[in-house]
């Protein structure tokens, strides 16, 4: 039950982890029972990835690598889903792809 998982991902979204992306990010994190944390440095400090107040306070701009770790039920899935969301530019980057 007490699985752990970790990964890091580069933010490519034009304006970084700002308001709209943060809302999506924390909403997704909250769908998992596991404790999910995020940091801008692999050595921490780690913050609660389910708290938009804390996530926004990191003020992570484009080009930042964020580190994620989870512990508990479906930890692997939680980290995987969040990494995928960041890699998809929070589902907002339609202009960056061929239409």
């Amino acid at each position: 039950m007490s699985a752990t998982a970790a990964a890091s991902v580069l933010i490519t979204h034009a304006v970084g982890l700002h308001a709209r992306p943060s809302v999506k990010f924390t909403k997704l994190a909250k769908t998992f029972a596991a404790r999910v944390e995020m940091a801008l440095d692999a050595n921490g400090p780690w913050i609660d990835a389910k708290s938009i107040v804390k996530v926004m306070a990191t003020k992570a701009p484009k080009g930042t690598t964020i580190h994620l770790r989870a512990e508990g039920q479906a930890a692997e899935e939680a980290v995987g889903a969040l990494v995928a969301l960041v890699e998809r530019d929070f589902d907002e980057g339609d202009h960056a792809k061929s239409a």
Partner: protein
Amino acid sequence: MNNRSPIVLTGIAASPGFAAGPLCRLDAVTASYTPKATSTEEIEALNGAIAMASAAVASLIERSSGESADILEFQLAMLSDDTLAEPALAAIGQGADAASAWARVLDAEIAGYEASGDDYFRARSADLGDIRDRVLRALVGTDMLATLPGAILAGEDLAPTRFLETDWSAGGGIALAAGSSASHVAMLARSRGVPMVVGLGDALSTLSGEVLLDAQAGVLTALAAGGDIARHRAAAAAFAAVRSSAAAYLSKPALTADGTPVLAYVNVADPSDVDAIDITTCDGVGLMRTEFLFSRGLPDEETQYRAYRKVLEWAAGKPVTIRTVDAGGDKPVPGFTVAEGNPFLGLRGIRLSLSRPDIFRVQIRALLRAAVHGSLKVMFPMIAVESEYARAKAMFAEEALALSTLGTVHRIPPLGIMVEVPSVAIAPQAFSDVAFFSIGSNDLTQYVMAAARDNASVARLNDTAHPAVLRLIGEVAAFGAAHGIPVSLCGDAGGDPALIPHLLKAGLRELSASPAQLAAAKAAVAGVTL
């Protein structure tokens, strides 16, 4: 009632109409909080106020779309996060009252965002300010007062979000000590038909109780006597009668008495404006302002694209003229505009956009992408010389090329210019290759008459019907007709029944008015014999 004499304050009418009701003061909120007896009660009060604020935001989300909805979603997420209130609850445990604890904690958060080196994060400080004030209002109960039918919101200035969250269906109005008739909230008030007066001065903060707001003359009266009240009612009834008789013209095409067709467009200040407009009542959008997007700092490309696309799709193929951002002057944007001694004659409109190509190119890309969703036209504000137009046009071509390389769908829209700087009105010959002219009568008038439109003491000079202004309008119309360049007018004059006969006689056949003035404008057109 009694022998106190009425207090009359004079300002500038920013949105015509009449209102009578209780004055609801928006400022000095924390000062009016009455501390509770115990910290347990303070904690209950704060949690209750946060819950009220969350419920208010949630109900606003249901009535919003696009960028406004995104911002509100963000605010709701912040309010729903227990982490936000934790330090305030701790401070209450140390003996602070709920209002000052909350204000201190949010002020610290706001300072953190303001200190960010990133424009997008810095802009979020406005949202934190909104969150702070919304909870404070719930704590002191002023939101209850504001929902009284016909309440007149009074303060130094008014946030556009506060306007949008107010239910105006029961009447009411806005009275501001400072403010500007060109502000975003003034545009919103005109488009929704909410009476508004700005520039009433510091004495406004001393008033309370029932007041009369005459937003035709720009006057606020407190302690009104019976005669004042009766005269106010009569004027309000006459104003309403004119509005309702004009309403019959709304669904018909605009035609003069002798049968000359006139194109009647609407001005859009916020994309949500179009939700309340029936597209069949107008010929399209003559001016979509984009300053609303910058009212919270710098918007990203996606936010802009969505706003433009929404209006283009609503217009269902009718033309939509979007003006590139007209910041500066009396419309400052943090992180974009610069403080100047004489801002109306400074770095504003296209001058500012060209000086910040990093910001301008984001707007250009959003416009190029949105252009495929309807009949888009784009115009540049404050053009004074031809090289500004040429530079902006070249940037459209460069960004279009970049989008082609990425394989992104886009289209270069027809590019026109605002005629508001006298140099263009006097010598339009330099601009014979623009796609269209749109006369900005507010700025053209203030520059020709050298009378700032936000200064009540020179308001009588600020007259679009002055022969000098009308002559310039007539010459631009004649130049356009001779060279096959369409000429429209999108200033407040386009919706002013007293000015419309002059404009049509000067040769204009395309007018753009705020949605609330559209019916009256069409009625005025019908009364003109050319």
